[in-house]
């Protein structure tokens, strides 16, 4: 079956497995190990991010309560803003850009296309360790003099460009932020290169583009977005660093006066930072969601025992979202001082991107329709993904119109929107992927009842936290406000803030079900078979967990599409992609 060419391939595994703890688990070039490393990094990051958000929610509702671990006993305005900044930065970069792509993409892209590893395994390892360095750098921001930066994950200049004089944390803290983000850009560019080359060149025989699982489509298009977007952020970051430390003025105009002191800069444009940042920043949010969309399609199909409804449309919708995603960045800048005519153009393009998203939603419903739905935990999270994506996506339609944005910009409405799509839907994509692929990755099954409990709490909790935020925003609740003490009309919104905070506490606490399930099952879960879900794609033909070279030397060829479920005239209700046509067990209809 597999042609063993010259060069040291033996019958038992085409690649010699590494020996020794360091080579196996620390500096490994095995994409599976690297995938798990990314996943664990993201898991650490999300726990930190959740703690930060719980502190934020606490402060919003009980700003005057004595906090023993805070110097001075009460959280200050700048400490709140540092929480805001770090929560956003850590979650967007080190969770949402890391777990779906670096974690699951790394682990399963090669296997789902029948390859032994990524195209460039050592580059892969380098990508992870640079990401790890970036993570250390961002955490260091908490501990440097002045503390963490307060300019938000968006780091608008001149607030972020002048150093300590604009506020606490804007000295060393902001520098660590830029350093971390720049390292992250480098790592992501290298990773994107790997994903793209692997997908283009290393697919199994018979796997044409339209036989790739939608998860692979998701990772592939995401990698292209990353390749084209992260370089722009890197450029912006370098220019910002120069403005702060080398006296340049890329983003700083003349005549800045801070604390009655004229700043010695001239000729720069604060809007230039916004353009560079959002040119990256908008594709970035599609980087966060597209892998989840791929997983949702994949899991919905598997547990409804039906092919994905409109597979080709789904694949092309992923491409359309990716493409259009580069053309809409100005919708973050409607009231920024940018030309209002550009604003309107961006608005029309942004409304258009709702179209492929809507197509995907209808096709997900179509996949479920007429199905035979089994409510395993991965499926619950995939269904939850659809519900949350619809809710979050629709609120985007308001924000996409500049006239309406006049009312809603920088309010909690925006916070509701992006949390529903990113902070919940994308997270649900990660959970669905975890519960789905845990058996394959670790050779053990997770606990179903605990998984379901985790789902119910998180699904209800997420809606209780973020749906009310729309109403806070419509009523004029402004984002990034440390407290409501100064503005009279904000007092009326405190009760709903309290509701949100309680919901947040409960939902955060409920994640313990996941953590217990995850770590307990790692050690003591029932052993998993090769294909516990009776799924069709290539990862399910190999052992759980897969051997070092993924297929023990027997690399598959592909004979059909990835979602052949309940095919009429076939005995089983699923057909593996790699099953030869003559070996498919057919029955007379």
């Amino acid at each position: 079956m597999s042609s063993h060419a010259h060069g040291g391939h033996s019958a038992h595994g085409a690649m010699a497995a590494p020996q020794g703890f360091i080579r196996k688990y620390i500096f490994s070039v095995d994409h599976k190990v690297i995938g798990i490393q990314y996943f664990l990094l993201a898991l650490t990051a999300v726990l930190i991010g959740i703690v930060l958000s719980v502190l934020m929610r606490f402060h919003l509702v009980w700003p005057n309560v004595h906090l023993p671990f805070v110097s001075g006993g009460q959280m200050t305005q700048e400490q709140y803003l540092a929480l805001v900044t770090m929560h956003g930065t850590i979650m967007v970069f080190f969770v949402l850009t890391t777990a779906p792509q670096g974690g699951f993409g790394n682990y399963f892209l090669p296997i789902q296309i029948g390859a032994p590893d990524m195209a460039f395994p050592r580059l892969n390892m380098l990508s992870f360790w640079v990401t790890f360095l970036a993570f250390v750098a961002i955490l260091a921001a908490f501990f440097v003099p002045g503390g963490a930066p307060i300019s938000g994950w968006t780091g608008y200049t001149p607030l972020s460009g002048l150093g300590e004089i604009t506020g606490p944390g804007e000295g060393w803290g902001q520098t660590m932020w830029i350093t971390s983000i720049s390292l992250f850009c480098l790592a992501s560019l290298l990773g994107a290169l790997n994903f793209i080359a692997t997908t283009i060149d290393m697919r199994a025989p018979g796997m044409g583009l339209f036989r790739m699982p939608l998860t692979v489509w998701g990772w592939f298009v995401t990698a292209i977005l990353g390749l084209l977007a992260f370089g722009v952020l890197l450029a912006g970051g370098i220019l910002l660093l120069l403005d702060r430390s080398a006296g340049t003025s890329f983003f700083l105009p003349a005549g800045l006066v801070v604390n009655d002191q004229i700043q010695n800069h001239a000729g720069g444009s604060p809007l230039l930072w916004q353009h560079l940042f959002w040119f990256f920043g908008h594709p970035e949010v599609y980087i966060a969601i597209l892998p989840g969309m791929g997983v949702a399609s994949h899991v919905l199909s598997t547990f409804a025992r039906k092919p994905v409804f409109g597979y080709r449309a789904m694949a092309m919708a992923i491409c359309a979202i990716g493409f259009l995603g580069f053309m809409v960045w100005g919708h973050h800048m409607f009231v920024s001082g940018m030309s209002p005519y550009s604003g309107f153009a961006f608005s029309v393009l942004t409304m258009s991107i709702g179209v492929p998203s809507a197509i995907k939603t209808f096709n997900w419903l179509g996949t479920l329709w007429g199905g035979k739905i089994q409510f395993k935990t991965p499926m619950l999270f995939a269904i939850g993904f659809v519900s949350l994506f619809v809710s979050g996506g629709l609120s985007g339609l308001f924000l996409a119109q500049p006239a309406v944005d006049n009312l809603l910009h920088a309010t909690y409405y925006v916070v509701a929107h992006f949390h529903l799509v990113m902070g919940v839907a994308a997270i649900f994509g990660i959970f669905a992927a975890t519960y789905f692929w845990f058996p394959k990755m670790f050779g053990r099954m997770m606990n179903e009842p605990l998984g379901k409990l985790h789902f119910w709490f998180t699904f209800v909790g997420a809606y209780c936290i973020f749906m009310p935020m729309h109403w806070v925003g419509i009523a004029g609740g402004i984002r990034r406000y440390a407290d409501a003490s100064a503005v009279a009309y904000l007092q009326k919104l405190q009760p709903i803030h309290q509701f949100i905070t309680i919901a947040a506490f409960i939902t955060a606490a409920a994640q313990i079900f996941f953590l217990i399930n995850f770590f307990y099952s790692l050690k003591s879960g029932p052993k998993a078979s090769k294909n516990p879900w009776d799924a069709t794609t290539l990862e399910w033909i190999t052992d759980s967990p897969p051997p070092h070279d993924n297929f023990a030397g027997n690399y598959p060829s592909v004979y059909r599409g990835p979602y052949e479920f309940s095919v009429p005239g076939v005995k089983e209700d699923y057909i593996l992609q790699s099953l030869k046509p003559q070996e498919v067990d057919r029955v007379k209809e």
Partner: protein
Amino acid sequence: MRNTNQMVIRSRKRESGSAATAGLLALLQVIMVCVTVYVFAANLYSAPDAITSVGRAVDEQYKLTLYVTATVFILSQLGLAYAVYRFRDHGQKAHFSRGNNTMEFVWTTATIVLFLGLGILGRRAWAEVRFTPPAADAIHVEVTENQFVFNFRYPGPDGIFGKLDPKQISASTGNPLGIDSHDPAGKDDIVVPTLTVPVNHQVELMIGSQDVIHNFFVRELRLQQDAVPGLIVPIHFTPEKIGQYEIVCTQLCGLGHSRMHSYLNVVSDADYDAFLKSGGQ
């Protein structure tokens, strides 16, 4: 597992409790839809009434968007709830289908028409402020924001704004904007921390900042604009109702961000004249 004499597809072992799970999920979806629709429809949380005609145009556009999104929201979320319950595994076969090109075409077209239509309809409310120059008799007020105060400058009786010199900025001695003491036109300029305007008159604000990016937002105007150092951005509005309205800064500007606010005072013509005459009291 049911044994039939026609084993076309091996049916999976029925998920015990799947009706409960499906039912609960569907129920939660329905509750979520009902609560959401109710709170939006009953306007339990809303912006205060708009006080300009453009503001009302924004509200019209918002309402239109709400109807469209509500329709899609209700249909898809309830559709999801229904599908999840109706097609739960109770021993049936799944219906094999790769899709339906006609449906793809129909819902794609419908979505394009709906979403792009919404976007284009929304042009008017945006254009009336942003594409339209101010009226000839608009009252001009300079808005200069800095950490963490609003400054409003009126040109005074001579109608001319005095030149500004950053070197003369001194908030402590009452010259936060740095009005050039050598420029006679600046002697009668009025600089105040709140914005007072006469009702039913167009006001043009020229919005800028001295240090970092701030923002000027009044809910009742349905209008906000970032204050960007190095830029002067004009916006105009015509308030139609006397009253006092909160001005807030919505762009993160440093540790005083949530404490930075001011007031828009819409007053009668007589009160406005008195305000100007008294030099801003």
